[in-house]
């Protein structure tokens, strides 16, 4: 883009040249399709791979000859992402249009049936819907809890004070724990016989205390554990915003006798809004995937089944691969809509400001 000194005109479509990527795509597509039809998967896999490499090489040579440095710089990342992420994603997207169970090697094209089943089948749809409602609940509660706790923690650390560095690392530690270990230990904390929570509550009230025997308690237990683990993430982002506010603005506000509340909204908040949005975005994406804590703490009992755990059951335990793929693409669609909404709001606000 920046270098407009293109050294060579692009080759004509039918010229055999190493930088003719258009031709490479055509040849690659044609050969791949033929190979996929005529050869068994184990052979065609290699042919398709070789074709992909051919197209990639043509792109690189083309970019190099014409000094499209942007393309050259982005190419390795795109290659890795394509092979490790996008290709499997497309694969499972493809599978979602077939009737396919991974432990039963027959495969049959069924179009949108899996999606229709996920949305309308009286048994499947109800389970999906239920898991979805629970997931929405967890997204709202865990993300809200993380934002609030993370924010308050960040406020604590916003000012410079002695030993701040050492206290900060203590608060950051929960997010470094592996989910398995912290989840398993939370089952211990919540255990009615051995756990600390019931021990303390029992000593205070004199009654036996069981946290997880009802939906409210189970949800609270999961939300607490999740918020405890991931609030530090939000804190870190918010804190970064807070420390970036120039000190003289607060001094000016002190001189101008601006109230604390107004100070927050007019000075602090504009500085952390972008980071808050980023935290919100990443935590929402993660909250949609909430499964491991649920598996460890309740196994989905007390009506805490989430869509992601539901998916693990369908795709892993029951091997209903294509059904799982369909559900996960429905879920992906929702996440994309939601994150775009965030991004739209974030951009609108920052342009308005």
């Amino acid at each position, binding site marked *: 883009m920046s270098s407009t000194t293109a050294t060579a005109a692009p080759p004509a479509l039918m010229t055999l040249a190493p930088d003719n990527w258009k031709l490479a795509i055509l040849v690659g597509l044609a050969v791949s399709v033929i190979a996929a039809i005529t050869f068994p998967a184990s052979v065609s896999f290699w042919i398709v791979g070789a074709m992909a490499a051919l197209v990639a090489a043509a792109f690189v040579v083309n970019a190099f000859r014409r000094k499209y440095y942007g393309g050259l710089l982005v190419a390795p990342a795109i290659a890795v992402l394509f092979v490790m992420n996008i290709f499997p994603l497309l694969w499972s997207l493809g599978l979602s249009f077939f009737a396919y169970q991974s432990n039963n090697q027959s495969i049959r094209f069924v179009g949108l049936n899996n999606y229709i089943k996920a949305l309308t089948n009286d048994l499947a749809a109800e389970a999906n819907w239920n898991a979805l409602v629970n997931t929405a609940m967890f997204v709202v509660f865990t993300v809200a809890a993380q934002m609030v706790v993370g924010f308050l923690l960040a406020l604590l650390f916003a000012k410079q004070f002695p030993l701040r560095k050492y206290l900060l690392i203590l608060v950051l530690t929960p997010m470094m724990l592996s989910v398995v270990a912290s989840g398993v230990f939370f089952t211990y904390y919540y255990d009615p016989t051995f756990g600390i929570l019931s021990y303390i509550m029992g000593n205070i009230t004199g009654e036996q205390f069981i946290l997880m025997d009802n939906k409210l308690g189970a949800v609270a237990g999961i939300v607490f554990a999740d918020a405890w683990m991931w609030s530090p993430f939000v804190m870190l982002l918010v804190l970064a915003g807070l420390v970036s506010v120039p000190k003289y*603005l607060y*001094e000016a*506000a002190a001189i101008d006798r601006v*109230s604390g509340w*107004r100070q927050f909204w007019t000075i602090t908040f504009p500085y952390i809004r972008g980071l808050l949005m980023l935290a919100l975005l990443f935590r929402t994406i993660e909250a949609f995937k909430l499964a491991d804590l649920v598996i460890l703490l309740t196994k989905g009992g007390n009506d805490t089944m989430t869509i992601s755990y539901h998916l693990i059951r369908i795709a892993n335990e029951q091997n209903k691969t294509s059904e799982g793929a369909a559900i996960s693409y429905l879920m992906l669609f929702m996440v994309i809509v939601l994150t775009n909404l965030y991004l739209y709001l974030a951009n609108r606000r920052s342009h308005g400001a």
Partner: protein
Amino acid sequence: MSTIEIRKVTKRFGDFTAVRDADLSVAAGEVVCLLGPSGCGKTTTLRMIAGLERATSGDVVIAGRNMNELPPEKRDIAMVFQFYALYPALSVGQNIAMPLHYEKLSKAEVDARVIKVAKIMHLTEVLDRMPSHISEGEKQRLAVARAIVRDPNCFLFDEPLSRLDVELRHSMRGQIKEVLTGLSKATVIVTHDQLEALTMANRIAIMRDGLIEQVGTPHDVFAKPANVFVASFIGTPQMNLVDADLKSFDGKNASVSLAGNDLVIAADPAVSRLKPSKVTVGIRPRAFTAANEKAADTIAAQAELIEPMGAETLIHARTAAGGDIRVVVPRDKRVKIGEALHLRPDPKQTHFFGEDGKAVRA
């Protein structure tokens, strides 16, 4: 009454003493400039007055009240920051209105005052813009507008003009002075620019290394510098400070050996306090007249470098002892490089400084 007084104020950061035993009082309606090179402690002094820093010891008294224990918001002051400290998320108008929220005025009243101030500071056109979308001069005016929109105990300015270009700076100096004159508040302006200080201040406090070296009217600090530092700091081109041996003083004329010349020159009677010893003689570049030939009261030197400055010409001249003397002569006085000069200092503008660097004056 809008006054400021600081008594024996000291500020230490760890081992470093930023301000030592500073005393200063500013009367109502008076503008005092804190002037000094960077790192001299002038901004720290200002921030202690504002309450942004706590004095390690000493008292800060504003409007007759001891303010040591009070945070900035309780001191009722207005301040203009070096980087303006404009609230980036608020429009120009909202910025001006910020200090008014404390007073819980009606919206109409707030608007009226904002518009009034905006008119004074020529900001009416840009009231709805964001600070990032206005010019540097407008930003500066906005910072002042925010300070004068209310009626505080005093005004504090921290290097208010340092970010403006020369031309803007010139016109803003006038504007600020005009505005301040109408307000009759005690005002402290921190600056490193002596022209700014000389033009805007009623009095100037010159600081160095945490100490206030001299406080006085612009005339005083120029005409009667208290010590070598002040003498060298005030005035452009810089005063000539020449090491000399005081040989004798007869109560009227001093006989000195200076830059390879033996010189007899009328001096302040107080010079009698000095024993024959090393002294420093200070002569402003404009205090020389060129004599045609060598005399008892002239210094011989050779023109080495000639810098035309428009109305005047600056000559760097080399004395016999190898020292450098700056001389300003009128434009019409033609001097050639290499020309021998006989410079006669004006005794009234010749200052004697003792070995301790202090001016010797009656």
